[in-house]
């Protein structure tokens, strides 16, 4: 397992796609924050005479709102990184040397999770730095360091469970183009609009309020990005993310084990 990880990490950090996705993620974060600031100052100027006020953009605000920014880039990288093993048929070099398919899968999941975390936190860091330079970090909440560590750990869990979905998709599809396209679709369908759509649909079907966000893995990117979380929310979020991680990984491993190479 250690050898598998060593080989995967070597390939990962020698892979140009990783650096391209990382740089693009950083650029998008920088440009996105810049546009946010421009839009904010424009909207504030427009609404000077009204009661509407845009949120105060600062480091802490960007920190709480940027955790989903890198998803597009790591989903693309995961598709390229894993599917190319199948396209170049190098997966045969690994399987034929007696490594169990479970271990091969887990090794890919761990290395891709690492990439997802790097990309996510790079995105967040750039946004926070830009905002802090422009208008300061903002007022620190109480128990800042402890809450920050908790938030980072919870966000890592969310990113890993989202990564497990992308990894599963690639192991099911195997082709680079198909995997990239499907992961992009997941990016699109994971958004708030879809959650709203599902919520409305469920409400119509069951004639009562259903909060889909509670059970939607992707929502916890935003829900966990708070310095004041109740234990209930944390517990529910952890259960949703761990369950998603286990289910997606199990499906991926079963499929990989059953299929011929």
């Amino acid at each position, binding site marked *: 397992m250690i*050898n598998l990880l060593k080989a995967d990490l070597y390939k990962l950090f020698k892979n140009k796609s990783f650096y391209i996705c990382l740089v693009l993620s950083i650029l998008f974060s920088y440009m996105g924050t810049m546009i946010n600031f421009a839009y904010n100052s424009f909207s504030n100027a427009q609404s000077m005479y009204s009661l509407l006020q845009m949120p105060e953009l600062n480091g802490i605000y960007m920190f709480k709102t940027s955790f989903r920014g890198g998803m597009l880039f790591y989903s693309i990288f995961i598709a390229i990184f894993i599917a190319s093993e199948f396209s*170049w048929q190098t997966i*045969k070099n690994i399987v*034929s*040397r*007696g490594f169990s398919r479970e271990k091969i899968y887990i090794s890919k999941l761990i290395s891709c999770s690492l990439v997802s975390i790097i990309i996510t936190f790079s995105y967040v860091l750039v946004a926070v730095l830009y905002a802090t330079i422009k208008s300061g970090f903002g007022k620190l909440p109480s128990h800042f360091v402890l809450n920050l560590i908790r938030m980072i750990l919870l966000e890592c869990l969310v990113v890993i469970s989202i990564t497990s979905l992308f990894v599963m998709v690639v192991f099911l599809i195997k082709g680079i183009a198909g995997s990239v396209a499907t992961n992009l679709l997941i990016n699109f369908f994971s958004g708030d609009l879809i959650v709203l759509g599902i919520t409305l649909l469920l409400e119509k079907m069951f004639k009562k309020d259903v909060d889909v966000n509670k059970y939607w893995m992707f929502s916890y990117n935003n829900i966990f990005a708070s310095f004041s979380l109740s234990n209930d929310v944390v517990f529910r979020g952890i259960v949703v993310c761990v369950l998603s991680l286990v289910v997606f990984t199990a499906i991926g491993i079963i499929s990989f084990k059953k299929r011929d*190479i």
Partner: protein
Amino acid sequence: MMDFALKTFGLTKSFSGKIVLDNVNLNVRKGDIYGFIGKNGAGKTTLIKIVAGLLKPTAGSLELFSSSDLNKQRTRIGTIIENPSLYPNFTAKENLRVQCKLLGVSDEKVIDKLLDIVGLSDTGRKKAKKFSLGMKQRLSIAMALVGDPEFLILDEPINGLDPTGIKDVRDLIAKLNSEYNKTILISCHLLGELAKIASCYGVINEGKLVKEITASELEEACKECLCIKVDNIEKACDILENKINITNYESINEDTINIYGDFPNSASINSELLSAGVGVNSIIKKDKDVEAYFIDLMEGKTND
């Protein structure tokens, strides 16, 4: 007791009900270069993929190094299956480094040594995607050699190579067997090339293993002979030995005798047999080359 690198027991594989491998019992002895011969679609790659763990058999089983703990034993084999499987954006050294990390080989000198063995020491920073097919095949062999496996399984390693490339790879395989004591299973279409290095052969046709034969048995089967079909084989043998003084002969079945070596002309043998009252149904001079022998086997013809 004979040591085997690979033994299969009734190995069968079907895809969507179509049987592509049918009850195959293959035996590769340690130290052999085993030529695995068959037409396209005969089932060679399917069998190799099953041995490598890429496919699961529908029925039957196999042993590697007399053990059925296959994943453990697979650490002792190196494979090339179908095309060279390389990381195209990596150099030869980087490709080998991936394999070294995978197999826990920490000595970097191994990489230089392997590149030297396969003749790719001077490729520098050239990416694998820019390699010629011959270079890719040789790099694949080097990848398969990482971890010093005892058994190499090479599926069509000389496919698409020019004559120089074929000779290079053939010489390399012979060297790996003689100098590094590797057991090698090699599947190949070029029968003449295979005949130059293999010590044992398995012929597969439409998923069935038609024959396993050693190089000496093949030589025997292919040497020039006079094939005589008679109605009384015992009497015919007596006349050959005592009247014509022929001792280098073999009774193939109940009516056929093969005479090897320097034999007199067929007319004199015919007249001697006829005068002794032995009916001669046919006398044919057989001079079969290795390719013709294998082609007959692959086409389902018997080889007496």
